[in-house]
């Protein structure tokens, strides 16, 4: 992937320019997200996890997938760029573009029949190559696959990862429906603002394909006579001046070889888009209780709502847990200040404990304020809050624990 987000609001115009949300605030208890109800619903076929980088999105996807499998679903989880640890925690040394069974899925002890879990990691170049191979004749496919411009596009262009994640989702869904191998697909999304770029994919592809630039690139192949206008001449000259004639001719070769495939691409992108709007799909927005992450979450929520994509709720990871007790931050701080210059070990320890308590209370209050601000602006978003865990996930038990926190937030934290 070669670039993060484009300024999307400016580009899509009417669809995203306006904020989506209530006109007046209605403070009240935050509606709780019931993850178990979501994964137990057999009509739920696809769960897409989105959110900004570093909020634990991939781990959340894997934990949901495992929990669903142990509650009887036949699950495949598509991860984008998992940490090595996470891949290993699923008993797979290196994930690749093929779904592989995760060993160690077991009954959860409450009598649910055990399902199955497959995991895979998106290989965007491989996926792109496969699409080309499936759409074109062997000679044509090989011409495309060896074109320098194609090689650059398929391995680095801004948004390839998003397109290919959605392409893969489409393939998995088709496979699931025809073979019955899976009844639930859990999808992780690329770690950037462009996480929602897949929503723009069909439109962006269409506007490019129908655009004048495309016609310009195709002009030599189709015979220039009737297309050559003064504007075309100027543009060709300018492009040649800037990028050099060689790049332009590579691009032209690529576009003319690809020409007949574009229609198919557009259709596939459109189908995936419709799949995302379908009733069996649910989006989970993942965030951390930090201003940046919650701002991104708000952006996702508004964007999904504008696209009429079904939002299941918000997962807030890494929350600080309230130590409880009646001692306020201010009272603890005052005690700390009285004791901090003491020299005996017990007073020093007590001072330290009070200071920790004061800081912890402040952090908990700040996070609660951030969450309630989000809830006021987005009152319909169901939310589940997970406490920060002391260490990363190392094995299936770690994922199982997170799944439990998601499914039974009240009990697991008590």
């Amino acid at each position, binding site marked *: 992937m070669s670039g993060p987000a484009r300024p999307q609001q400016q580009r899509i115009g009417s669809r995203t320019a306006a904020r989506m949300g209530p006109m007046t605030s209605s403070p009240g208890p935050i509606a709780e997200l019931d993850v178990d109800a979501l994964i137990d619903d057999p009509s739920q076929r696809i769960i897409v996890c989105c959110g900004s980088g*570093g909020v634990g999105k991939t781990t959340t996807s894997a934990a949901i997938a495992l929990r669903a499998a142990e509650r009887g679903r036949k699950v495949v989880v598509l991860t984008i760029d998992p940490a090595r640890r996470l891949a290993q925690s699923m008993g797979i040394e290196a994930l690749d573009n093929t779904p592989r069974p995760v060993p160690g899925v077991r009954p959860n002890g409450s009598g649910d029949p055990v399902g199955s879990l497959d995991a895979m990691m998106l290989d965007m170049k491989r996926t792109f190559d496969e699409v080309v191979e499936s759409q074109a004749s062997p000679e044509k496919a090989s011409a495309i696959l060896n074109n*320098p411009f194609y090689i*650059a*596009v398929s391995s*680095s262009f801004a948004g390839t990862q998003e397109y290919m994640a959605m392409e893969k989702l489409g393939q998995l869904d088709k496979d699931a429906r025809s073979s019955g191998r899976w009844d639930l697909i859990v999808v992780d999304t690329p770690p950037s*603002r462009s996480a929602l770029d897949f929503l723009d994919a069909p439109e962006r592809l269409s506007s490019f394909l129908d655009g004048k630039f495309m016609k310009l690139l195709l002009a030599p192949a189709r015979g220039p006579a009737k297309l050559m206008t003064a504007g075309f001449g100027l543009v060709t000259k*300018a492009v040649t001046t800037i990028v050099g004639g060689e*790049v332009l001719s590579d691009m032209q070769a690529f576009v003319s070889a690809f020409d007949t495939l574009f229609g198919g691409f557009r259709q596939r992108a459109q189908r995936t888009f419709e799949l995302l709007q379908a009733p069996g799909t649910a989006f989970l927005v993942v965030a951390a209780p930090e201003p940046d992450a919650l701002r991104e979450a708000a952006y996702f929520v508004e964007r999904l709502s504008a696209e009429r994509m079904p939002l299941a709720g918000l997962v807030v990871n890494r929350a600080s847990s309230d130590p409880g007790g009646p*001692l306020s931050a201010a009272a603890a701080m005052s005690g700390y200040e009285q004791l901090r210059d003491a020299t005996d070990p017990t007073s020093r320890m007590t001072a330290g404990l009070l200071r920790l308590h004061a800081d912890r209370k402040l952090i908990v209050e700040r996070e609660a304020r951030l969450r309630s601000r989000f809830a006021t602006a987005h009152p319909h978003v169901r939310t589940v809050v997970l406490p920060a865990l002391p*260490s990363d996930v190392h094995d299936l038990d770690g994922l199982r624990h997170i799944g439990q926190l998601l499914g039974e937030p009240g009990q697991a934290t008590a």
Partner: protein
Amino acid sequence: MAEATDNPLGDFPKVQLHVVTGKGGTGKSTVAASLALALASRGKTVLLCEVEGRQGIAQMFDVPPLPYEERLLARASEAGHGNLYALAIDAESALLEYLAMYYRLGRAGKALDRFGVIDFATTIAPGVRDVLLTGKVYEAAQRNSRNRGARTYDAIVLDAPPTGRITQFLNVNNELAGLAKVGPIKTQADTVTTLLRSTRTAIHLVTVLEEMPVQETADGVTELSAAGMPVGGVIVNMVRPQDLDADAREALLDGTVDPRAIGKVLGTTGIKAPMRLVPTLVAEGRDHAERRRLEDSQRALVDKIGVPTYELPQLAGGADLAGLYELAAALIDQGLA
């Protein structure tokens, strides 16, 4: 940790371009902003740049969204301080500016936009976007006669893309290879690369003391070094408070704390019902001691990376503007700026 010394020039006296990267969620933007403030406090005229279209600078400094224009962010109010400016770079504006500066395209410039070429170059053409973003940073670092009257900066701080993408982002040359072998875009990429690989640049990596970010930081340093990119320091962010000494932490972990003694001390501060608070406080202390132990094991791994390290405290109130100044002071104390 780097020694708190009075080295008036900081640990990177020759560096003009500070690139700040880090895994998502480690606070790289906060660190970039603090470093920019620290450098300005050292008397430098500083430009803080962002390239991801998030308007993070505007939010941190509580100012309206930044346009594609160098804006004054903090004016030096004390002798010996420098001004801090900010710039939000987007590929489209950078391309239009570049075209205006280097090619007098006139009518063709407008035609490029109308034909969707600008859009194509900034969103679809591989690598071009990164060349444009780093190219603008280069232009600000090395002002020439084409941008007449533009301000020159002693230091530029770039809030860069995350660690997972940083080598690709900075290695613009490589990204274009196989595509544009000759031509102006290639020449531009070569010039930018020369600056990015020189001793005038330092790439700093931000991490927190948790497994995944530390692993990613170590991998990032290896990757950058292999690509011939100059790694600066590792900045460990959001370090837990150090209020309990080693003996106290050990006692908490071993469960050898005397609750009555603590209750008695609490009583002397006027806190009500002290004995009933002790179990909560001790449990919190134990939890903290456990996490500190995990942090220490991660810190040992950070030290093994073999580059200078700096530590910034977790801010209980969040990284607001006051927090940024606090972090900037800590960076100066430790010699990063």
